[in-house]
């Protein structure tokens, strides 16, 4: 009697665990739509926005604390990572299901699909390394960096990868062809966010500031020698940059400000957008900006800096990825 009861209990427990482990189905995303997806930290969700209609399609409630995503060149596979997540998980958008899982270990804080060699660079803060994977999930090579790497920036022409470390005042440069670390140079502390002007050979680097001090300026260095050139005021906490047709858009999360600068650093225009925005993307001359505190997405006309539309998303949008059709 007891033994059969035990069997039933074990069976039920097994069913419970297996069912909770099984691939959870999510509402599918139509293949033909141009979408933006936000990774929302506070409520562990993904919000999908139809870029043509400029409205939210749906949310995926995730069961792991993902902090970022990459959409593969196939336009269907979305890769999700998080510092506290043991694996990097791949989902199919059209099927709404998990399709693969890469055992990377915890500590992945950033990722980028590189133009050079169609590789994925993952930033690992536990190992303090940049790890390069092919699209099948095989780790191809890796390079050690300074403590707590965070921002990575690809120089497409020079085929280099710039790595900013949060805690070390040292920039790491990786040769993507030779697959090795090159000589880096010292930069300002708590650097975050960067833009590379390959024509002028300049790298613009932002940051949060150290201690109670707020970073108010963009620091401009020579991208080759690392010599400090000048500071461009962009208060406060400039942490996101997008270059477009001789303009640079700078997002300062401390004041929730979007600046439009020329390449010399002159302010052409600025607006207040969202609350505490961290993330910005440029799609078809439209800037998409996520307000981390305001839980919304702003679509801004990059010509006149007018907010075209504000769309509510999940809580704490921290990263945006885009698929264009």
């Amino acid at each position: 009697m007891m033994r059969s009861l035990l069997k039933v209990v074990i069976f039920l427990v097994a069913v419970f665990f297996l069912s909770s482990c099984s691939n959870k189905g999510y509402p599918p995303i139509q293949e033909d739509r141009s979408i933006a997806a936000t990774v929302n930290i506070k409520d562990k969700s993904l919000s999908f926005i139809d870029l043509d209609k400029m409205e939210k399609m749906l949310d995926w409630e995730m069961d792991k604390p993902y902090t970022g995503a990459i959409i593969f060149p196939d336009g269907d596979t979305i890769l999700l990572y998080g510092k506290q997540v043991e694996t990097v998980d791949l989902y199919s958008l059209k099927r709404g299901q998990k399709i693969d899982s890469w055992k990377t270990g915890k500590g992945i804080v950033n990722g980028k699909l590189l133009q050079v060699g169609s590789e994925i660079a993952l930033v690992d803060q536990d190992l303090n390394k940049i790890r390069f994977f092919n699209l099948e999930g095989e780790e191809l090579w890796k390079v050690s960096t300074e403590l707590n790497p965070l921002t990575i920036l690809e120089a497409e022409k020079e085929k280099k990868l710039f790595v900013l470390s949060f805690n070390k005042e040292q920039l790491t440069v990786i040769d993507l062809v030779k697959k090795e670390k090159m000589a880096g140079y010292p930069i300002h502390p708590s650097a975050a966010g960067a833009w590379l002007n390959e024509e002028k050979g300049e790298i613009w680097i932002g940051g949060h500031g150290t201690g109670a001090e707020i970073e108010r300026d963009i620091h401009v260095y020579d991208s080759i020698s690392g010599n400090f050139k000048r500071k461009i005021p962009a208060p406060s906490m400039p942490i996101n940059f997008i270059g477009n047709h001789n303009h640079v858009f700078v997002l300062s999360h401390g004041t929730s400000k979007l600046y439009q600068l020329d390449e010399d650093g002159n302010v052409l225009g600025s607006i207040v957008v969202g609350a505490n925005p961290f993330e910005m993307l440029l799609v078809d001359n439209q800037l998409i900006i996520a307000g981390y505190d305001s839980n919304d997405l702003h679509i801004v006309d990059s010509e006149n800096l007018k907010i075209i539309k504000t769309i509510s998303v999940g809580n704490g949008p921290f990263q945006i990825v885009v698929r264009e059709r």
Partner: protein
Amino acid sequence: MTFNMDSIAKKLWLTITAAIVVTIIYSYFLSYLFYEKLYVENVEENLLEEGHRLAAEYEGGPLTDELKDRIDWYSSKSETEIFIVSNPRELSACLPFDIDYETLISGTEREKLLKGKPVQKIGYEERFDRKIMAVVIPLLDENRLEGIIYLYIPLAKISEVMTDFAYLWMIAGILFLVIAIFTGTMLVRKLTKPLIDMKDAAEKVSLGDYSVKITNDSMDEIGQLAQAFNHMASSIQKEDERKKEFLANVSHELRTPISYIKGYSDALHTGIIKEEDQSKYLSLIHREAGRMERLVGDLLDLSKLDSNEFKIEKTPLPLGQLIEDSVQKYILKMREKEIEFNYEVDPDIIINGDAGRIEQVLQNILDNSIRYTDKGRITLKMFKTYSGCSIEITDTGVGIPAEDMDKIKQRFFRVNRARTRKDGGTGLGLAIAEKLISLHGGTLNIDSQLGKGTMVQINLPVLDI
């Protein structure tokens, strides 16, 4: 106040004291809690109000230096420490980047502030390196947290008030304790004094002093106990007196025949009595010995009756016949005393009784009647009554004084104590008769008028055939 270890006074005193102490301590903590809660709540409310008033000065947009100066000025005038913060780093704006910096506001607090709600905290704050009570008011421009107003007071200030309160309480508590213990002691003394009195009285009684009386006017249980004790003591005293009197009576009754016997036998022995008188003296000795025999026999009967060892053997008995047989031996004696005797009996009455004992009762009563009647009349009637039968023996003798009526059945009681014992009564007759009748389930009543006569009535149950 000294106690022995087992005294009820000590137990009571300890109980009362413990109850008082527990009550004081309990009420102290309770009121401390309430006081603290109320005071802390009040302080918190004031901080909130103050904060909201200051926040009303903010009109949106980035915080201006003017506003900061005004808040600083206010802070310098106010007892509360107040400062305004616009630094996003202090407000955890960079939180998702895992910034290695101890911010003023935590992530969860920021979430609350973003919703427009103030944050209250109480406890140790590392930033100020002390315990504080703080209220944080958000300054929101739409949904942007542009800054906060941080108001706090050190908890030490609150504890100071609490300490003052505690001292006051302690003094009041000790004062109350002293008064309460003093009154408690008085109360315990008042409560236990009758008990101690009773104990002393009981000791006196056990030493033979039955005259002790406890004076307690209260009507409570202890008062009732004191009354019961007094009653018991007087009962014991009466019983003791009765015992002494009984012993005195017995020795007195025995001494008379013994002194006769001793005197006459001495005279015979020494030969001072003439030979022709010797037989007269011998018969006197014989008579006194017979009297002693009767006395001892009666005493033995009474003792058996008292100790319930007396056995009566009941048989169905025609009462009329028994009475007729019994009275025959008195006819002659009555004639000698010129007493007119009439009797009238119902011959059909049958009782369940011991013939010998019923006869003994009749003898005792008739002996008394004849003894106290001279030239008069004795009447005996036996008839059926509602509940059985009744024997009435009426004489026209000397009667009994009213004041002696309730003692008449007592042992050795004689109405006239100076009376000679020439006719040989032992003074135990009525006592024995009453006991025997009660053993037959009946009653014995005496009714008498001084100088007119006495009527003894015996009621017995009859046997229904």
